[in-house]
C-alpha cells in the first residue's frame, strides 16, 4: 500500500474511499482534510457552546444552584480548552488553511500530505479524551490556564488527561505549521512571487511562524507540570521550592501568541472575502503584509501583560505595556485598510459580507478594550474580572468566530457547488450579532464593578446584568439552528452556484466547484493579481 501512495497522488486516490466515506478516512487530499478539520471543529464548537450555556444558566442566579461547584470549574475549564484548541485554532488554521493554501500557491496538495492527515487525526482522539475525562474521574478544574499550585492540588487524573490532550493538540498544531510554511515557501507555482500571493497566505505564514516558535514552549511547560503532578517534582510547586510565577511566564509565552494564532488567519480570511464582495482591490497590500509580520514580532514580546498583578517588577510592567499597546498600530492599519477596501466599492450585502462587517465592528471594540487593558494601572483593577472575559470574547468570538461564519458562507459554494440560503443566513447573522453583543457588552460593566471571572456565585447586585448576559447567550444558542438548517437544506437542495458565483479572481475559484481531486484539470493558473477588480481583468467587454 505504501508503494502505491508513494508513486503519485492519482494512484493514492484509487485506494482511498470516495464519496461521503472519504471524510472518515485517512485521506491525503488537502480539501478533504480541510473539511474534516471544519466539521470536527464545529462539532466541538457545539460541545463548547453547550458548556457555555451551562455556565450562563448557573450565572442567572447569584448563588451556586445549577451544578456542584467543582463541576462548574470543570465546565469552565473544558469550555475554554475546547473553544481554543478544538474549535478556533484548528478551524481558522487547519480547515481553511488546508483547503485554500494549495490553491493559492498553485499546488495540487500540501507539501507533506501524510503529515497533514496525521495532524488532523490527532484532533478527534485528543478531543474525545478530554471530554471523556469528565465522565471518568472528573475533568481538569484549574481553568484553561492550569496555573499551579491549583492544577497540582486538584484531582490528578483530570489534569493529566488535560495535559496529554493539549500536548497532542499542540503537536497537531506544530505539524500543521511546518506544513504551511513549507507549502507557502516551497510549493509555489513557478512564476508566482511572494508579494503576489493572496493575503491569507501571508497570514498563515505569520501564524505558522508563531505556532512553530511558541507551541514547543507550552509543550515543555506542560510536561514539567505533569512531572510535578505525577512524580512529585518541584518545578512549580512552592512547597518543594518551585516558583509558580515561572509557570505563568512560560504559559503566556505560548498563550499570548495563541491569540494571534486565532486572529491572524481570521484577518487573512477577511482580506480574501472583502475585496470579492466589494468588487475592489484589497487596499494597501504591502502595508497589510508588513503589519502581519509586525504583529508576529510584537506578539512574541508582550506575554507578561497577563501577569501585571503577579508581582512583576515595575520596569517589566512598563516594557510590556508599551509593547502591547503598540500592537494596536499594525492591527489598526489592517482595519483602516479594510474600511478603505469597502469605500467606493460595489458592495453586495450578503451573509458573508455582513459577518465580515460584524467582525470589524466587534473587533474594533475588543481592540480598544485591549489597548486599555495593556495599561498597567488600568489592568490592575480589572485583571481577572468579567471585563477581561468580555474583552477576549470580543476578540475570539466577535473576531475569529464571526470570520469563520463569514468564510463558511463565502466558500460553501466552492466546496459543494451550491449556494447557502441568504434569508436564513441573514437571520443567523442578526441573531448572532445581537445575541453576542447582548451577552458580552454588559460583562464589561460587571468586571469594572467587582465581579471576578470564573465564579459560580456572586454579589446579588449583579444579578440583573448577568441575566441580560444570559439572555444574549440564549440568542447565540438559538442562532445555530437557522445555520444548521441552512447547511443541511442547501447541501441537499440548494441553488446551484456554478463554478464562480462571486466572479472572484483568487485561484481557488478558477476551477470547477467542487474542484477535482488534482485541483485543476490542466495546469494551475498563474494568478499574479488576485485582487485585480475594477481593472481589465474583470471587465466583461474585453
Amino acid at each position, binding site marked *: 500500500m505504501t508503494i502505491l501512495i508513494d508513486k503519485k497522488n492519482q494512484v493514492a486516490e484509487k485506494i482511498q474511499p470516495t464519496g461521503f466515506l472519504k471524510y472518515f478516512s485517512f485521506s491525503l487530499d488537502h480539501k478533504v482534510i480541510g473539511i474534516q478539520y471544519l466539521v470536527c471543529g464545529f462539532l466541538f464548537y457545539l460541545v463548547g457552546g453547550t458548556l457555555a450555556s451551562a455556565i450562563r444558566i448557573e450565572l442567572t442566579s447569584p448563588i451556586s444552584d445549577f451544578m456542584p461547584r467543582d463541576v462548574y470549574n470543570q465546565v469552565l475549564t473544558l469550555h475554554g480548552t475546547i473553544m481554543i484548541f478544538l474549535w478556533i485554532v484548528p478551524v481558522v488554521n487547519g480547515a481553511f488553511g488546508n483547503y485554500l493554501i494549495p490553491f493559492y500557491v498553485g499546488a495540487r496538495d500540501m507539501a507533506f500530505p501524510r503529515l497533514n492527515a496525521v495532524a488532523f487525526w490527532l484532533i478527534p482522539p485528543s478531543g474525545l479524551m478530554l471530554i471523556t475525562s469528565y465522565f471518568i474521574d472528573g475533568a481538569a478544574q*484549574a481553568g484553561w490556564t492550569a496555573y499551579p499550585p*491549583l492544577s497540582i*492540588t486538584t484531582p490528578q487524573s483530570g489534569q493529566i488527561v488535560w495535559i496529554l490532550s493539549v500536548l497532542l493538540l499542540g503537536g497537531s498544531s506544530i505539524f500543521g505549521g511546518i506544513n504551511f510554511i513549507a507549502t507557502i515557501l516551497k510549493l509555489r507555482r513557478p512564476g508566482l512571487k511572494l508579494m503576489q500571493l493572496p493575503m491569507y497566505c501571508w497570514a498563515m505564514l505569520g501564524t505558522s511562524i508563531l505556532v512553530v516558535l511558541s507551541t514547543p514552549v507550552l509543550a515543555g511547560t506542560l510536561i514539567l507540570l505533569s512531572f510535578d503532578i505525577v512524580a512529585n517534582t518541584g518545578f512549580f510547586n512552592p512547597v518543594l521550592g518551585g516558583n509558580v510565577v515561572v509557570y505563568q511566564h512560560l504559559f503566556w509565552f505560548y498563550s499570548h501568541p495563541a491569540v494571534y494564532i486565532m486572529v491572524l488567519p481570521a484577518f487573512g480570511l477577511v482580506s480574501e472575502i472583502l475585496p470579492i464582495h466589494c468588487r475592489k482591490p484589497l487596499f494597501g497590500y504591502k*502595508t497589510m503584509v508588513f503589519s502581519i509580520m509586525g504583529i508576529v514580532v510584537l506578539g512574541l514580546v508582550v506575554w507578561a501583560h497577563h501577569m501585571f498583578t503577579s508581582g512583576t517588577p515595575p520596569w517589566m510592567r512598563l516594557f510590556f505595556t508599551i509593547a502591547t499597546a503598540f500592537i494596536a498600530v499594525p492591527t489598526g492599519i489592517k482595519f483602516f*485598510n479594510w474600511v478603505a477596501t469597502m469605500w467606493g466599492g*460595489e458592495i453586495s450585502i450578503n451573509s458573508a459580507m455582513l459577518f465580515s462587517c460584524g467582525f470589524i465592528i466587534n473587533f474594533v471594540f475588543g481592540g480598544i478594550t485591549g*489597548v486599555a487593558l495593556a495599561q498597567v*494601572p488600568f489592568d*490592575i483593577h480589572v485583571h481577572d474580572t468579567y471585563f477581561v472575559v468580555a474583552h477576549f470574547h470580543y476578540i475570539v468570538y466577535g473576531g475569529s468566530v464571526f470570520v469563520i461564519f463569514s468564510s463558511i458562507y463565502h466558500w460553501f459554494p466552492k466546496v459543494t457547488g451550491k449556494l447557502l440560503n441568504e434569508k436564513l443566513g441573514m437571520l443567523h447573522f442578526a441573531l448572532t450579532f445581537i445575541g453576542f453583543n447582548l451577552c458580552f457588552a454588559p460583562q464589561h460593566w460587571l468586571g469594572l464593578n467587582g465581579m471576578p471571572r470564573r465564579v459560580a456565585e456572586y454579589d446579588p447586585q449583579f444579578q440583573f446584568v448577568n441575566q441580560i448576559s444570559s439572555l444574549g447567550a440564549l440568542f447565540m444558542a438559538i442562532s445555530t439552528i437557522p445555520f444548521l438548517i441552512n447547511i443541511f437544506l442547501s447541501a441537499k437542495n440548494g441553488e446551484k452556484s456554478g463554478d464562480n458565483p462571486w466572479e472572484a479572481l483568487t485561484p481557488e475559484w478558477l476551477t470547477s466547484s467542487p474542484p477535482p481531486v488534482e485541483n485543476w484539470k490542466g495546469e494551475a493558473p498563474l494568478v499574479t493579481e488576485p485582487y485585480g*477588480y475594477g481593472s481589465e481583468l474583470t471587465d466583461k467587454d474585453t
Partner: protein
Amino acid sequence: MLNKSSYLIFIISAVIGISFWIGFNVNLLPAEASINAPIYDELFKILFIIGLILFIGMSLIVLYSLFKFRKREGQVGDGIALEGNLKLEIIWTVIPSIIVLFVGLYSYNIYDRMGGMNALNHDHSVMENNSEKIWAGISQSNNNISLIDTNIEVSAMQFAFLFNYPKGDFISGELHVPVNKEISVRMESKDVIHAFWIPEFRIKQDIIPGQPTILNFTPTKVGKYPIICAELCGPYHGGMRASIIVQEESDYQDWFNQNKKDELKA
C-alpha cells in the same frame, strides 16, 4: 464640495462631542474610596473617550459604506481599482502611533502617581530577616510610616482571608483600617494563588504561595467594602470574600484596643 466637507466636519465634531458627553456623564465605575481611585478614574475617562471616538467613528464608516456603496438591483461592474494611497496609509500609521504613545506615557504617569514606580518602603524588613525578597504591588509612597500598627499581614487560604495585626497580636476575619492613613499589607498564601481585590480602591495584587507580596493603599472614605479573591482558587472561589471596614481614626483605635492581646494592653 463645500457642502460635503462641512458635513464631514459636522459629523466628526458630533462624534467627538457625543464621546466627550458620554465620557463625562456615564459612570461605569463603583464608588471611589482610596487615593488611587480618582487617579484611576481619570485614566479611565480619557481611555473611555478616546475609545468611544474610535469605535463610533469606525462603526459609522462601516455602516455608511455598507449603505452608500451597496450594489443596487441590476447593477453590474466593479468598484474603482484603487490599490492604495501612501498618504492615507502614512496618516493611519502615524496618528494611531501618536495616540498609543500618548496613552502609554499618560498611563505611566498615572501609574507613577499611584505609587507603582516607587521602591517599597522597608518597614516590613523590621519584621523579617532582610534576606527575604519581597515582590511589590503598588506602593503609595516612600514616606516613613511611623504607624507600625497599620502594617497588616494577610494570609489567604482556600477559601478565606485572615488579617493578622502584629502590633496587637491578634487575628481578625475582617480588615479594619483607619481612614486617610497609608496602609501596608504584606500578603502570603498558605496554598494556591489568590488575589486581593478591593474594587472601590481600584487595586489588586495576587497572593502567591512561597512569595510574599506587598500592597500599600490609603482609604479615603469611611465605609464597608468587599475584598474579593480574583484568582481561581478552587470550588469555593466565588465565595472567597471578606470585608474591609474603613473607620475614623478614633473608632479604629477603639476597635484595635478592644481586640489586642491583654498583655499588650497597658
